[in-house]
């Protein structure tokens, strides 16, 4: 853990692990965690939407729990283990089951809210692996979609739940999107 004991208003060293990789940077105390992640670590998948802890575009996992990075100081995260949207797909491009569900269920339109939605749904499904539709809607209370694409976001969350519970294949059989043709074609 780093040198957060100093009282001068100058820089503090913040060391974090993000998506399994260690980083150490100098920050002003007033640096917000979301800007630290985006501008100092260059991980721009975490978005700044409302900047007032309402829209959830800046949602990340901080020590395993979904939080809003616009309302946390970078210095508060010193020593933390962080996961951002860049940490979800596997190396090589295989999507996380939640991302796959968004792909199949058309869970995104402009995509701006999607990183926060995916991470909020990750938390939701770890807390409650088999949620009702009402529980999904309530659980996404902290995330806004300005395209108002909520129907398909909710469908994506429910589909992701089924995938993670093993009740639905990772890839929907009728959506072999990367295949040039299905079995019946020549």
């Amino acid at each position: 853990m780093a040198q957060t004991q100093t009282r001068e208003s100058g820089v503090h060293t913040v060391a974090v692990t993000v998506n399994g990789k260690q980083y150490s940077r100098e920050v002003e105390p007033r640096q917000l965690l979301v800007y630290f992640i985006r501008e100092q670590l260059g991980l721009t998948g975490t978005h700044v939407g409302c900047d007032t802890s309402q829209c959830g575009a800046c949602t990340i996992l901080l020590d395993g729990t979904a939080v809003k990075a616009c309302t946390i100081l970078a210095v508060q995260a010193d020593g933390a283990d962080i996961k951002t949207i860049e940490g979800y797909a596997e190396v090589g491009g295989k999507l996380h089951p939640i991302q796959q569900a968004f792909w199949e269920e058309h869970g995104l339109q402009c995509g701006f809210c999607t990183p926060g939605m995916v991470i909020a749904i990750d938390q939701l499904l770890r807390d409650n692996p088999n949620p009702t539709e009402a529980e999904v809607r309530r659980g996404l209370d902290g995330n806004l979609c300005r395209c108002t694409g909520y129907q398909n976001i909710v469908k994506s969350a429910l589909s992701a739940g089924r995938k993670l519970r093993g009740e639905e294949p990772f890839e929907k059989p009728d959506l072999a999107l990367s295949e040039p043709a299905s079995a019946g074609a020549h």
Partner: protein
Amino acid sequence: MFPAKFAYAAPSTLQEAVGLLEDPDAKVLAGGHSLLPLMKLRLAQPKLLVDIGRIPGLAYVRREDGVLAVGALATYRDLQQSQDVEQAVPVLAEAAHEVGDPQVRAKGTFVGSLAHADPSGDLPAVALALGGVVRALGPNGEREIDLDGFFVDMLTTQLQEREIIREVRLNVPPAGAGSAYVKFDQPASHYALTGICAVISLGGGTISSARVGVTGVGPKAYRPTAVEQALVGKAPEEEAVKAAVQSVADGIDVQGDIHAGTEYRAHLARVLTRRAVLQAAQRARG
């Protein structure tokens, strides 16, 4: 949005934190979900933030005899997930579930909510209805402050400038009591336009004791003691309860804003108090 410049310290003990508060422009940072938004808007510009978030052993929620002890760093999410809360004081989890949204609840703290004393905060009403004490550490050691009287005015409590709440001790309602938190929220912010917590005991078919906490109505959370007294001896039924709760906003400097004017808010207080009392009574019957 960035806060104005400040210095930052992360002490490893509460004593050390109290020492740092000798700076009159210092503020305590725990979850930060009330303070940091104010700082980003530059409504608050402390010169020093004393982050108690790294002090070990303060994130507890546990039952001790007839009391639920909540440490300074326990989050709303901790309250929602606590077995002790679920068994002994379920209304606390019910109310915690009404705060903000899941991400906010993962970071914001119960004790911070009481220290901040937002007139629309949910948990002050629950703390008052349950009753208990605040244990605060200051330069002269620790003292207990009764929750009755703890809230002084809008955003103002009995805490002195150099005091930090170490824990809040809430009374566990007696066996057989029922409790409920009923809220009408502002749909975007989820702050309470009005929120009512009722703790009701029954005996011989009537209400034998009632405690009520009100938030969102006046400049601070309060107990409508005339209502509590009027409820005793009444049947837990619609008309009797409705009559007993009519004075819930009497004598209160009811706050009005663009979301709810004063008359509407006082009306909400009467309606929601009736609903909270009836629901608590229903639960008391089991």
